[in-house]
């Protein structure tokens, strides 16, 4: 089993978490650190691809975003525009993909989310062609996935809506998919907390990726924010 350091960061501004990930990816590529799973939340933030792609899926102007306290941040993960806000659990795995299979990785992340959701009381499923974790009837998405890999080391990851203010999703066309909605564990009538979701995701992640959760190494600690 591979060692995996699970780092719980609390609420971190998007740009800060992005920079941290890039630092960790570089260290992981150099084999200076072990595989890492960052678990965190973001303040209200809309992310779009740094080539500008996806901005057409914003439903309001930049001024309104600012007025509503929502940051707009460029990123470089796969996928379209998306929204982060408190109550949404982010998981950013910095993993070396030993089997060099990007789609296999996406399917594994879906498996983690389906198992974690099940542990929290929600039945979810895959929808072919629509990466993420969906209600079984495909009407709404519980968790979104957007990933990047560089030299087979991953960054970015998944976002599971636990108690997110779903009204904020009206600001965008989530992931550019206009004909389906977004849901949360709370919307499904479950009394789940982000902290319970963290535990469920950590357990499912270790299971699916056959990893042994261990204390972060010194080298990793020096790269983490205090």
């Amino acid at each position, binding site marked *: 089993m591979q060692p995996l350091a699970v*780092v719980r960061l609390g609420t971190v*501004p998007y*740009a*800060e978490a*992005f*920079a*941290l990930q*890039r*630092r960790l990816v570089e*260290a992981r590529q*150099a084999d*200076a*650190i072990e595989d890492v799973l960052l678990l965190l939340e973001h303040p209200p933030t809309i992310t779009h*691809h740094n*080539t500008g792609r996806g901005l057409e899926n914003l439903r309001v102007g930049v001024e309104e975003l600012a007025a509503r306290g929502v940051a707009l941040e460029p990123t*470089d*993960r*796969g*996928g379209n525009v998306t929204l982060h806000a408190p109550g949404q659990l982010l998981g950013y795995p910095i993993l070396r993909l030993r089997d*060099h*299979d*990007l*789609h*296999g*990785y*996406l399917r594994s992340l879906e498996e983690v989310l389906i198992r974690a959701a099940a542990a929290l009381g929600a039945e979810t499923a895959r929808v072919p062609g629509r*990466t*993420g974790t969906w209600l079984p009837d495909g009407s709404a998405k519980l968790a979104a*996935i*957007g*990933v*990047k*890999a*560089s*030299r087979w080391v991953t960054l970015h990851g998944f976002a599971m809506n636990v108690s997110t203010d779903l009204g904020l999703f009206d600001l965008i066309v989530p992931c550019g998919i206009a004909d389906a909605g977004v849901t949360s564990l709370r919307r499904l009538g479950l009394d789940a907390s982000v902290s319970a979701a963290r535990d469920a995701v950590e357990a499912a992640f270790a299971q699916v990726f056959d990893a042994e959760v261990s*204390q*972060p190494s*010194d*080298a*990793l*600690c*020096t*790269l*983490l*924010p*205090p």
Partner: protein
Amino acid sequence: MTTDVLLPGLGESITEGTIVRWLKQVGDAVARDENLVEVETDKISTEVPSPAAGVLLAIRVPVGTTADVGTVIAVLGEAGDAVQAAAPAPSIDAPPAAPPPAPSSNASAITRPGGAAPTAPPSAPDARNRQARDSGELKLFVSPVVRRLAREQDVDLGQLEGTGAGGRVTRRDLEAFVAGGGGGSGFTAPPGGYVPGLKMPVGGFGGRLPFDRATPARFAPEVWEGDRTEPLSGLGRAMAEHMAYTWWRAPHVSTIIEVDMSAVGRHRKATRAGGGPSLSYTACVSWALARALAEHGTFNASLTDDHRRVLHGSVNLGVAVAKPDGGLLVPVVHGAGALGLEQFAAALGALVDKARRGAMTAADLRGGTFTLTNVGSNGNLASMPLINQPQVGILAIGAIQKRVVVVTDASGEDAIAIRPMMYVTLTYDHRANDGAASGRLLRDLKKRLESWNPQG
């Protein structure tokens, strides 16, 4: 000779990918394994490294286009080919496409002079050159190396007088121009600024230091026969970046005071004789410093980019600890300003022990508001340390040495005495505090140590 770059297989079920962005432009030099292009498939994007070293001659699949795995997406070639590719369309007036001047030994894969037998230009002239030619910008031929160096150093090549064949701007011309003060400074403020509360510069400026650019060629190290090159460890690189950042970021000023450690020494001895815990000098000075910092709040602080000072409510004192296998860690005693001496010493002792065992956790290293470093372990007397960003000060203590000093007795008579003396250096960020404030902190610390009161 050219090399085709194919869209690689990215996983069992993946048959196609979409070009998100080219990380190199036509005419750019590419090292083997350097990232060349970003490709996206489904919800995952990945960087594809170059299969060979050379120069990017042509891009066959533009951004936004989806291609099957195995499609030729670009063509790489050698420096000689690149000369043709990067030059304006040949004309009778064009100077001969001589190879670029020999690069210094470290230029590695960028060019290979000598192999410049002109070959046919690539079939598709690239857009950048066409545009440059149309705008009349490229009056003279410039080698890709020189163009890249010019870009890195913010030099407009039009400003230079070329001394090469046909008035060509050579690398030497560029270097001479830059050495003479031309070109941009290269120093710009980080876009997001430094984020207080982060020990390492991980936030706010995109993971890249504002000054972190390619080393100008004239400063690149030369590697001679018998030399050995080794990569820095992760910890080593983190330190290098952090130290370079702090040096760039904060105007450091150091002030030194000398302290008579007799009273602290007597207390240590008495504690040990009374069956109490063993108190190290580092623990005693750190504790006194934490107490002093609680009263000199402007040193227990951080600065923000919008010119505000964050005065931390708690003194979280980091104490630098050398690891047995090399490297340095700075575990943090949280709430140090409110701890009693023995509590503090116990907390510090536990952290030092953990650091030496390699059992530090992230929580032990987080949240420091000020740092102390003991440089005396090898008999060193004083040091001017660099500040641990985003803190605004650091204290260095040197070796305690018995020295002959002049003391004044109770009746006002001067006498020569032998006393254990120690130099204490306060290095502070002059944006956050001035010399008078730093002098007061040092005087206070000296007083606490010389008239030692273990009850605080």
